[in-house]
């Protein structure tokens, strides 16, 4: 009987530590969920003269993928984005973050271009407005231009199937 209290305390500690170990300290919940996409006016990566704004992207639910040629994890994620783009299930808008135009275009030439269009954010201004801190990041944006989900780090096949695709389907059905 006298061991009940210490044992209880021990079990509670173990549970708390187990929860603590499972939490990812790098996961920072975004305050932008359910907020509209911040306004922007930036050049198109492929076409220097063209300016892209919010009006170019809204319409139907899609993904916004933040990437850079200097980002190693983007390379890991890339084949998945290529397959997703080829499947035609959703369109992916690129946001090239703090990169040079030459490097970015060469990177797309080498690995393939899954993006319908790529916004060229050399200064990282839109990245800052989107709270980007760990490229690659992917935002799921609905037809109204509202951010619904944010993936920090590469999209894994598991997250794609269990989170992103179901959300796209639900959001697509609403219109």
């Amino acid at each position, binding site marked *: 009987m006298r061991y009940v209290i210490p044992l209880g305390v021990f079990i509670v500690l173990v549970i708390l530590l187990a929860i603590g170990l499972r939490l990812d*300290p*790098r996961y*920072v919940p975004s*305050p932008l969920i359910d907020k509209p996409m911040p306004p922007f006016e930036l050049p198109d990566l492929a076409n220097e003269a063209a300016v892209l704004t919010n009006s170019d992207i809204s319409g139907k639910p899609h993904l916004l993928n933040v990437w850079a040629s200097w980002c190693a994890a983007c390379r890991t994620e890339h084949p998945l984005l290529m397959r997703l783009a080829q499947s035609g299930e959703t369109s992916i808008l690129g946001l090239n973050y703090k990169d040079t135009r030459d490097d970015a275009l060469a990177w797309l030439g080498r690995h393939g271009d899954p993006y319908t269009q790529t916004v060229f954010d050399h200064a990282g201004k839109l990245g*800052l407005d989107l709270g980007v*801190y760990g490229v690659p990041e992917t935002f799921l944006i609905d037809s109204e231009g509202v951010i619904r989900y944010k993936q920090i780090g590469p999209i894994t096949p598991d997250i794609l199937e269990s989170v992103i695709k179901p959300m796209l389907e639900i959001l697509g059905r609403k219109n």
Partner: protein
Amino acid sequence: MKKALQTFCFFLALSFASYAADTPVTFTSAIERERYEALLEELRCLVCQNQSLSDSHADLAQDLRDQVYAMVVEGKDNVQIVQFMVERYGDFVLYKPPVKSATWFLWFGPLILLVVAFAIVVIFARRHTRGPRALSKEEQNQVQMLLTQDQEP
């Protein structure tokens, strides 16, 4: 000798140059500089999470420092600057999180633990200092009986 001096001056100049590149901030008043520096201590870098913006060498920290600098020079007050960061990066950028339902345990948890610990100490201390309890009337009679029984034979 002259050559050595020249080399020394060259490296001296180089060291100043790199220092200047690290801190490209100029302020019109000391108050602005103080505000800038205080804000950098208060805001946390998201890449190297246990460093403030002023400590971190991450690219992101540099971008955020530039942003804070630009806003200080523009004349935005501290509340506006902090709010700007929170709107984009969440409460996480603050070293001192706001008191709200999600952070309630964080703020008051230690106090609750202290109270519980204090209560436990008091309970144990009392248990140990309390001497043997007084005997009831019946028990006293019993003792008396046993004592007298012993003396009889």
